[in-house]
């Protein structure tokens, strides 16, 4: 049985919403710590709130645990508590092995110093002895692909080059536990692939990873198990597929309430509605009707449709201009239909946003924002984590 690399037990952390009070509480807490050796204040003082409350979980060797939750759920606070940056109000964390937190890349970099000098500064800040950094120096430089620039001041580096150097330092000297906060996509595509490959090597070598994200896509692609937290509390912990499915449907309901609206310029458009089948199978036929009630005759209108996933990525976008479909609106009711022979979106929740604009894209008459939800289902459990699902023909030659 795999041993535990990390045990988090009943972890809670409170903060104050008010800066001045937070400073005063800081003074009081320090006084108590010094003179009473105590900081177990379980009562919330004025303006305080629980950023995390009673979080417990375990990370086994070789496991990748995803931590998912919306903005402000407490994911980063949890990561900072595990990495030792913050002290818990109550509870404890047991770490068995060397832990490295990739919360930010290139910590301690000084822009005036060269890449070579910064490797030593950053490496020692990360807790590695100088001799170890010296022995890994060539690996770090070659992984970062910065051989020609290593003796230049890093203020001359691009942000991608700096991130590459930071990532290389962080992963070249391997810890047993890696905390990652949505920073894997560093540099160009080739380097991002290299990073993922290095992370996979780390995992297959027995290393454990905690990956924090609010995107279910990166969690699905990388994690064995998922901890879902919301408003500082543990919602659920379990298998990636189950938790991500639940999280996505929860997100859809939450976003429905918070950020959905229809924009109408009443001088032109009275109403805009969509009619479609709300749940379809991935890869199946999909049709949609756009019902527009216009207050006047309008020539040369562009109708655009976009499919957004819950991470806010625009996955599919089409408009009438791209196929030279000349659209005009007559006063009163107008109806347009749109058909996709095979909607290849991957399983999950999406928003269909429609925009009606003039010939110039800045002239917007009407738009729907995150009110028309579409659920794409899949009978198969064997689906990838990509945005779309194509059905290629496989042959053995």
């Amino acid at each position, binding site marked *: 049985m795999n041993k535990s690399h990390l045990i988090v037990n009943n972890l809670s952390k409170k903060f104050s919403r008010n*800066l001045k009070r*937070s400073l005063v509480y800081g003074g009081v807490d320090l006084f108590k710590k010094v003179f009473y050796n105590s900081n177990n204040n379980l009562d919330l003082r004025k303006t305080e709130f629980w950023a995390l409350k009673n979080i417990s979980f375990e990370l086994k060797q070789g496991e990748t645990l995803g931590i998912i939750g919306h903005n402000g759920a407490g994911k980063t606070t949890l990561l900072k508590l595990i990495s030792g940056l913050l002290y818990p109000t109550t509870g404890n964390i047991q770490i068995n092995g060397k832990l490295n937190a990739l919360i930010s890349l290139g910590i301690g970099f000084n822009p*005036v110093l060269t890449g070579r000098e910064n490797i030593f500064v950053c490496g020692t800040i990360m807790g590695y002895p100088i001799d170890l950094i010296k022995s890994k120096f060539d690996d770090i430089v070659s992984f970062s692909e910065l051989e020609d620039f290593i003796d230049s001041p890093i203020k001359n580096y691009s942000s991608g080059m700096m991130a590459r150097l930071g990532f290389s330092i962080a992963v070249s000297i391997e810890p047993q536990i890696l905390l990652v906060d949505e920073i894997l996509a560093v540099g160009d595509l080739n380097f991002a692939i290299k990073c993922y490959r290095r992370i996979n090597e780390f995992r297959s070598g027995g290393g454990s990873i905690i990956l924090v994200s609010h995107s279910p896509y990166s969690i699905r692609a990388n994690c064995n198990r998922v901890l879902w937290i919301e408003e500082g509390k543990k919602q659920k912990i379990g298998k990636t597929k189950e938790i991500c499915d639940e999280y996505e449907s929860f997100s859809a309901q939450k976003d429905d309430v918070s950020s959905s609206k229809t924009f109408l310029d009443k001088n032109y458009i009275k109403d805009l509605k969509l009619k479609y089948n709300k749940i379809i199978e991935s890869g199946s036929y999909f049709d949609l009707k756009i019902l527009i009630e216009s207050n006047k005759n309008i020539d040369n209108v562009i109708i655009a449709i976009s499919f957004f996933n819950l991470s806010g990525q625009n996955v599919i976008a089409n408009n009438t201009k791209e196929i030279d479909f000349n659209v005009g609106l007559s006063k009163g009711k107008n109806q347009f239909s749109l058909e996709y022979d095979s909607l290849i979106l991957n399983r999950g929740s999406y928003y269909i946003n429609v925009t009606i604009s003039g010939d110039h894209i800045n002239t917007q008459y009407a738009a729907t924002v995150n009110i028309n939800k579409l659920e794409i289902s899949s009978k198969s459990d064997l689906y990838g984590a990509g945005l779309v699902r194509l059905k290629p023909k496989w042959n053995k030659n």
Partner: protein
Amino acid sequence: MKTKLQNIFELGFQLAIRDFSSLYRLSFLGVFWGVAGPLVTSLSFILLQRSNIINIPDLLISYPAYVISGTLIWQLFVDSLNAPLNQVQINKSVLTKIQFPWLALIVSGFINIMINFSLKFIPIILVLMIFENSFSFQGFLVIIPILGISFFGFLIGIYVLPIITLFEDLKRVINLITGPLVFLTPALYPVPDSGILNLFIKNNPLTPFFLTARSFLFNLNDINSIESFLIIMIIILFLFIPGCFFYNLSMPILIERMEN
């Protein structure tokens, strides 16, 4: 324990190299700026004394030697006092992103201050010793009161760090006090024979550091000041270890507030 201490010193050394290199790479005149401040203060007082605006009683050494050595030592104390806070502020972005041995910041601050101080102190003092005809190997013992006054500054800096980090107003109070405090030390003039200044300067725990340093530098054999200096040094060293514990206890609370 040994590995932990080794990590603290290794990291402190790396951070000191980083800060020192970046400071001097951006400046054409480098060390001159460190020397300029104390020299300008000293020259002002020398001018005042030569113009008989201030009346300095007879000294065992020349007034320029007295005032230049005094201002350099005073500047070292002020720099050491401010070093813990400066280090925390310079490394704020690191402190809020990664856990590392926080005492390394104190080590780094100390190394930086000692390097900067040596670069300006050694050439000036060598010239003064030659002019005063007091050059002797006993002069090298000045390193003891120099380290002592720096420790004293760091000790106060460590103990006030949490309170001045949390409360900006108190930082201003400290700045307000340190300015005029120089007049309550024998940095610019000797201890008066009587009056309220005599009372303050005589009982100021900084006074023995100035007197002992000058005693070593210029062969003055001031035994009384050396005795007081040793007593204060013992107290400082005794308070230094609890100071380090206090610093380590306070840092998580400060880091949490730095993120606000």
